[in-house]
């Protein structure tokens, strides 16, 4: 690009498109790892060992009380100190995963604890071990009840990916791409609204889908205690 264009070019559009793709990728990757980690932590908290509960709760409290921006740079600078020169993109990804794992853990604990005791008693009474009852009874029931909250967390995660820009990670995700274009062409409103529309549509559509799924599930089967 050797001409310094003052208008929105095709390249700019591709940049934003790429940004959207990066946002998507970041969300899915950190969502996957974060949920996995969060699942384990949430399960650990629901096991019933008081010391474990409080220990994991501290983990969760700390992560929830410190801004994501700080967590990004803190972790990044820690890695730098430790002599592990990891690409900022990767360290950002790790930070996002750890960040979301705390929220997922809470939701998972609520889901596990929310399964009616009678179901668990029935499963164990049939001779299932703890792991079996967990896998075949608690997880399916709990998963359905926390699906809306978990989806909400994933959508929140997608919005939070916009902060990875603070690390100068490249390639840029959607909001950073937008900002790059804005500083050049000085037309912030249109671009921000365009980027906003992307986030909005993704969140709104997924929320609708989840609500509809939830409605279809509760009308087909009711989990009574």
């Amino acid at each position, binding site marked *: 690009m050797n001409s310094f264009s003052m208008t929105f070019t095709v390249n700019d559009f591709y940049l934003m498109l790429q940004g959207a793709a990066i946002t998507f990728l970041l969300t899915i990757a950190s969502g996957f790892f974060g949920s996995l980690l969060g699942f384990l932590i949430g399960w650990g908290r629901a096991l019933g060992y008081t010391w474990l509960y409080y220990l994991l709760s501290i983990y969760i409290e700390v992560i929830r009380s410190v801004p994501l*921006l*700080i967590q990004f740079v803190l972790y990044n600078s820690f890695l730098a100190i430790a002599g592990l020169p990891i690409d900022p993109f990767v360290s950002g990804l790790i930070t996002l995963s750890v960040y979301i794992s705390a929220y997922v853990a809470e939701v998972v604990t609520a889901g596990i604890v929310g399964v009616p005791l009678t179901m668990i008693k029935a499963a164990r009474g049939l001779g299932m071990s703890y792991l079996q009852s967990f896998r075949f009874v608690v997880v399916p029931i709990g998963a359905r009840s926390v699906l809306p909250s978990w989806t909400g967390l994933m959508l929140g995660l997608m919005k939070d990916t916009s*902060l990875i820009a603070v690390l100068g990670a490249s390639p840029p995700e959607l909001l950073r791409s937008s900002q790059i274009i804005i500083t050049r062409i000085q037309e912030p409103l249109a671009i921000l609204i365009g980027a906003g529309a992307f986030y909005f549509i993704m969140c709104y559509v997924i929320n609708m889908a989840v609500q509809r799924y939830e409605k279809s599930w509760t009308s087909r089967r009711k989990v009574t205690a």
Partner: protein
Amino acid sequence: MFDYRFQWRVVFKHWPELLDAALLTMELTFLSVFLGLLIGMVMSVWRKSENKVLFWFTATWVALARNTPALLQIYLFYFGLGALGIHLSSYAAVLAAITFNNVGYLIEILRGGLDSINLAQRGAALGLGMRPWQVYVYVIFPQVLRAVFLPITNQVVWAMLGTSLGMIIGLQELTGMTTFLQSQTFRPFEFYLVAAVIYLIICEIMLMSARLIARQYFRW
């Protein structure tokens, strides 16, 4: 591996600035939640109104606030309004954006609370001749606030985290100040760690105050 000498003294030398910034963070947090509650209480009533304009205005606000990143909202207030000729300071932009964001979530929270309040309370209050606005102020909302106190305190924490985004547009609240200081002293890790601890402390202070308030005003 750890070939690094931690220098904490540098951080503590800048204690006053960090404290100022922390206070700014708290101020922004409380203001945005306070304003958010005032606006949110009014709009949560509109949310259930038969008036089409009020209903859709509220629904749109909520949808926009909850489905777009907070940083985008800050950009819109700071750069977006700037393009229209309205130049907000970074403080004003952050306050406006975080309040806007808060209102979106608070309306949903308050709406849940409103639904849980016995319809008959309204009937009883109206039956005494109270005007609708009086019913909301003296009877309904005191009960709503108690019912949803926990989600509201969560929202306060959320708002505090949101203020940190001010750093990106140059506001020197805690994150902004920390970034500035570490760029001067080349001690990112120490400064950010201390900042993280300060955030934890602010959080604890806010949660403790919330508990005290609850005990004082919600004894019933």
